[in-house]
């Protein structure tokens, strides 16, 4: 009789912890795709930006090439770390475009450019926000995978810890322009 109760308890616990891990994992995956949505929005804005800047500063080829390359590198990057690095590189190269605009008053005055700059800054903020939510979901998952007794079930069903984005405190402030 005791064994029967123990078995029922064990099955119940397994179902409970398994489901908990599944929902945590799916929350984290969903949060990751939310980050993707914002990143795609940025990819779509970049060609427009490059075209607009070209119209006013056609001889600054280097900068355009750098941005275009950074964009395609970010889009094709595989793996979490490599991708994060590529995205951060893209952010940096975008900053250099806006720094370049400082030398072209006509470009800065152009309505189209202002709109694009505005949109891109907003997208930057949204990428950060989405990453923060992803991090909070992953933190919940990782805590569950590490802590007792969920860690036993995580091991049995092979739940892996997920990686966190590194959000530096400087990123909270408005981007500084430096060469």
């Amino acid at each position, binding site marked *: 009789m005791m064994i029967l109760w123990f078995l029922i308890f064990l099955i119940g616990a397994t179902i409970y912890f398994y489901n908990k891990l599944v929902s945590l994992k799916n929350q984290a995956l969903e949060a990751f795709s939310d980050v993707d949505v914002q990143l795609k929005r940025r990819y779509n804005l970049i060609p427009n930006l490059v075209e607009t800047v070209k119209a006013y500063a056609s001889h600054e080829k280097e900068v355009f090439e750098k941005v275009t390359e950074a964009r395609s590198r970010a889009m094709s990057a595989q793996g979490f770390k490599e991708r994060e690095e590529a995205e951060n590189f893209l952010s940096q190269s975008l900053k250099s475009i806006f720094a370049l605009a400082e030398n072209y008053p006509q470009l800065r005055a152009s309505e189209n450019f202002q709109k694009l700059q505005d949109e891109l800054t907003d997208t930057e903020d*949204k990428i950060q926000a989405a990453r923060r939510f992803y991090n909070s979901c992953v933190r919940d998952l990782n805590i569950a995978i590490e802590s007792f007794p969920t860690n036993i079930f995580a091991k049995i069903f092979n739940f892996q810890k997920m990686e966190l984005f590194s959000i530096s405190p400087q990123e909270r402030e408005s981007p500084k322009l430096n060469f």
Partner: protein
Amino acid sequence: MPSVYENIRTNQRKTIFLISTFFCFIVLLGWFLAQVFGNSQILYFAIFFALFQSFLSYWYSDKIPVFLVGAKELSKKDNPRIYRLVENLAISAGIQTPKIFIAPERQPNAFAAGRDEKHSVIVLNQGLIDLLDEKEIEGVIAHEISHIKNRDVLIASVAVVLVSFVAILSNFVLRLSFFGGTRRDSRERENPLGLILFFIVIVLAPLIAQLIQFAISRKREFLADSSAVLLTRYSQGLISALEKISQNRIPLKNQNPALASLYICNPFKEKNWFFNLFSTHPPIEKRIEELKKVSF
């Protein structure tokens, strides 16, 4: 954060408790009056009324508070700065962007209402936008978004409708006794009703207030404050916002005690027993003290 999910469940339980207690109370009241006046139609009316107002308090929990303060919806074009603040904080919290409304009040204050994440609103007073800077407004919005995420808003919005009901009833009683005094021929019939209702209101108001005090715990403000800091990663914004809001002495144009517990800070600065009855806010100094302890 498991505590947030526990909080959601507790809030849902309390909301059901609040609505059903109120429902039973009105039906009992109807039954009592039906017995006194020997008219069973009063009971039917009470049941209908209780059903109607339970439905109303749940289904229109976002629209009623917005209507009561006369707020107007803010679109992205009107104020992209505020709109983006809300959008980005909603992304950080992982909820849908709530609708944003601006109330024509000069007092800096704000509240959130609605029944769930998909039907939520954030109402900002015009004074808040005028007097606070970007980081402070961000702190306030993060506080309201945390209320939405923790499902604190449903129970508070339901409470608004219930308290409004008490206010309407007491108004009704006042008018009834006023007219009852002037009309001589109907005095005998109306006086007992007025007297009974008067006593009911005297008993009812503190009782409802007690119920709401129980349902809306003071902890939720602390929890929303600390969750807000988790979203913005910057506690100073909310701290100085709370300081500015609490030091401001501009009164609300639209003084509705039913809304008191919704706001981020108690909107009624004067001592008024009826308003204080429904006040569920912990002292602001305590909240600031707790916020200063937050580290991350």
